[in-house]
């Protein structure tokens, strides 16, 4: 299978996944409820506790509001959920025999995997855009340049997260256990990525260690998602805690390593 035929096969698998997921009301409810709960309910609920009260007071001197702070993290959360859930289709495909049909087709396994990963990426970007649609309430202004950079970052994140989801899905045989397992992966990753608690940007590392327990700082620093959330903040609200090159490096490395891992696991199916 070569050239256009291969591309056509990839497109067919990609479109099947995208169409099925993006027209599924259940998954869309999840895609809408997360930004509603995290940004509109939690963000607005906690916003007054982090807002400026005294001009010149050094407590909570941050160049953003809590709503702005949490907004990029919720974009990442929606991408993670959408990407990893889209990978769950692998379990269904395996259960109902569709994957067997695909595997015996002339389509190379890497191409099948790539189509599935690209589908997961597309779905993740669309779910990320659902969060961007509520940017007005968070006070995040989206120019065309910001939007394009955010879309590129969302695509890279979605790609890596779908690969991770596929690695998980290959390891499991039942759909129910995938739901539990994915939550056990997504939520700890999300909560330990500096997503919900702001760290004062004027803090040095020594000051951060005085404010937070050392184990939490270590976990946050070891979590690759920390740098993805940080980069998304850099793009959407123009503030990031870590050096600008770290995020793209970590995301790029994750894309390569996770795709290689997914390809290895997929080749042994």
């Amino acid at each position, binding site marked *: 299978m070569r050239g256009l035929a291969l591309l056509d096969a990839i497109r067919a698998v990609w479109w099947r996944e995208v*169409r099925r997921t*993006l*027209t599924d*009301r259940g998954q*869309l409810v999840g*895609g*809408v409820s997360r*930004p*509603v709960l995290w940004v*509109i309910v939690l963000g*607005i609920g906690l*916003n*007054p506790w*982090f*807002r*400026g*009260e*005294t*001009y*010149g*007071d*050094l407590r909570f*001197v*941050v*160049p*953003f*509001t*809590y*709503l702005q702070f949490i907004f990029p993290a919720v974009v990442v959360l929606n991408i993670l959920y959408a990407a990893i859930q889209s990978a769950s289709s692998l379990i269904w495909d395996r259960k109902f025999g569709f994957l067997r049909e695909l595997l015996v087709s002339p389509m190379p396994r890497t191409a099948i995997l790539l189509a599935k990963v690209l589908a997961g990426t597309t779905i993740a970007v*669309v779910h990320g*855009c*659902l*969060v961007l*649609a*509520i*940017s*007005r*309430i*968070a*006070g995040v202004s989206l120019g065309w340049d910001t939007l394009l950079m955010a879309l590129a970052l969302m695509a890279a994140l979605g790609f890596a997260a779908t690969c991770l989801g596929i690695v998980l899905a290959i390891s499991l045989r039942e759909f129910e256990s995938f739901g539990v397992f994915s939550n056990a992966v997504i939520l700890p990753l999300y909560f330990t990525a500096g997503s919900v608690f702001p760290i004062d940007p004027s803090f040095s590392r020594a000051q951060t260690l005085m404010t937070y327990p050392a184990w939490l700082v270590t976990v946050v620093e070891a979590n690759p998602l920390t740098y993805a959330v940080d980069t998304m903040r850099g793009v959407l609200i123009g503030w990031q805690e870590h050096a600008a090159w770290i995020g793209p490096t970590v995301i790029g490395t994750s894309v390569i390593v996770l795709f290689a891992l997914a390809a290895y696991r997929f080749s042994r199916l």
Partner: protein
Amino acid sequence: MRRTAPKTGWRAWAPLALAFTLCAALGHLPPDASLRDIKRAGLFRVCVPAVASPWITTDPTRPGFDIEVLRVVAQRMDLGMTPVAVSEMDNGINPRSWGLTRARCDMIAGGLAITGVTRSFLDAGPVWGTAGLVLFSADGAPLEGQDGTVGIYLVGTGTDRLALGRLLRRAGRAAQVFDHPEALADALASGQIEAAIAPPDLEVTTPGIEISDLPAPFEAGGAGPGFWKGDRSFSEEVRRILRRMEAQGTLSTLRQAYGIASPTE
């Protein structure tokens, strides 16, 4: 048992379109109660220095650019506007000693410099006029490598005064703060001070005194209003009115009346 056939064509994508519409609609909900509270009170209070010409003056017929702009804003919001004169803003070198709290005022104005420092504390902007500082010295001599006292007249609020103090200490220069621009110009003319840091519109008639730029962040920049972080519904409303005033030429007329350069100039 009848099975429902899957929807095809555009109808299959209707839930996705609905999801985006719902999110966009929810994004227009008011994010806080600041505008509601101000409307309930019937007025908004603005913390300003007692004098910061041309932004705030003591002349009731020409109360200052910021006061006049905010009066128009209040009028268009069908509200009152009360300036709260904070004397600490005139004299104190450190914003932390100004005692500005949410309980005291709803916004801050009076030649507030829109800088990174200001934005750390406040939701600052838009820039509605040009403010900033320059160095007046004999033959444009720099701060470094010279002796003598430097006179300072700061009309704007929000200048990073601690950084300005550090800059002067690094240059090994003593500083003397002046309350009025005329006093500063007189001191420069009489030789009481060797150089002056003031806004570029300071009237200096002393021969040989030239103007030179100060390093960032003290170079001429923007001035505008400051809102408390988190008061988005109020700040958005004020910004919407300011955009309309800019489009209608109201801001430009007031700038001309007070001799303030437009931020785009």
